[in-house]
């Protein structure tokens, strides 16, 4: 399954998430693919675009935290873009909004690197 589309702008990797429901049904495979992408990508500056995601569960959040831990060790970062209200609520409940920088605008997210 294809979990995301990839593009690169100004040395920043844009990961456009394709699932409407980012949940346990896909999180294990997503995590494997995402960790592999982090390892093989020459750029370690990532933006995860949640614009298409309408619902996220705890297992998917765990997968992106796992990615953050890996990329931090490689001196990179993951920034978050385009949270819809139910997804934003999950970032607030889990206090992940204090762990990730969150943006509404792609250009602002890119410029933050």
């Amino acid at each position: 399954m294809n979990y995301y589309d990839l593009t690169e702008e100004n040395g920043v990797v844009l990961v456009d998430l394709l699932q409407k429901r980012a949940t346990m049904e896909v999180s294990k495979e997503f995590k494997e693919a995402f960790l592999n992408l982090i390892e093989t990508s020459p750029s370690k500056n990532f933006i995860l675009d949640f614009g298409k995601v309408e619902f996220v569960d705890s297992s998917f959040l765990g997968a992106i935290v796992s990615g953050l831990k890996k990329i931090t060790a490689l001196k990179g970062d993951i920034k978050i873009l385009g949270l819809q209200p139910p997804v934003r609520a999950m970032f607030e409940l889990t206090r992940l909004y204090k762990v990730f920088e969150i943006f509404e605008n792609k250009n602002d997210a890119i410029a933050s690197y």
Partner: protein
Amino acid sequence: MTTPKETVSVTVPSKLKYCHYVSDASELLFKSKINFYSEELFNLFTQDMRIVMYELFSNAVNHSQSDCVTIVLSVDEDELSVTIKTKNNPFVIKQVNSYINEKREYPLIVPPFSNEILGSDFVVYRDYEYDIYCRVTGPFDVYFRIEKNISREKHEFDIPEHYGLSLITKLTHYTGYYRSPDGYDNFTIKKRIK
């Protein structure tokens, strides 16, 4: 006079593909059985319960290895109660480290819980602002309570990767587990309606 409790029970196969069915069906039930003062209250309640139902059911599927999951919803005028029943793997207490550099491997604690730990609290989740404690209240039962702490800095703790139990505990006023004598594992939450 209090409204009598109404109870609905449904059993579904223990498969992840039923997660959204369970949470959608629960939402319809809340709408038909609970009188909310306003649409805003209803929306807040259902947003919270959508998360709770999803996490309860997916945790049951993921951890219990049970063939099926029974969901029992009870509602009266003050409170909604949900019990998720499975039969196979019991709940296991997994403690978390207190600080990022504490790499202690805690042994898993499984029921029946020994007399020595009855009444003890174990930290099972820690984030920037909250600790979740699991209190052992009997050989086969525990409940969870949340405590807000002074905000921590990012470097002071290991960012958690498992959020299911914390979401459930944060969004309800009671979360508990009980293994009944007939071998069923019961995870119960209660949420105030008003």
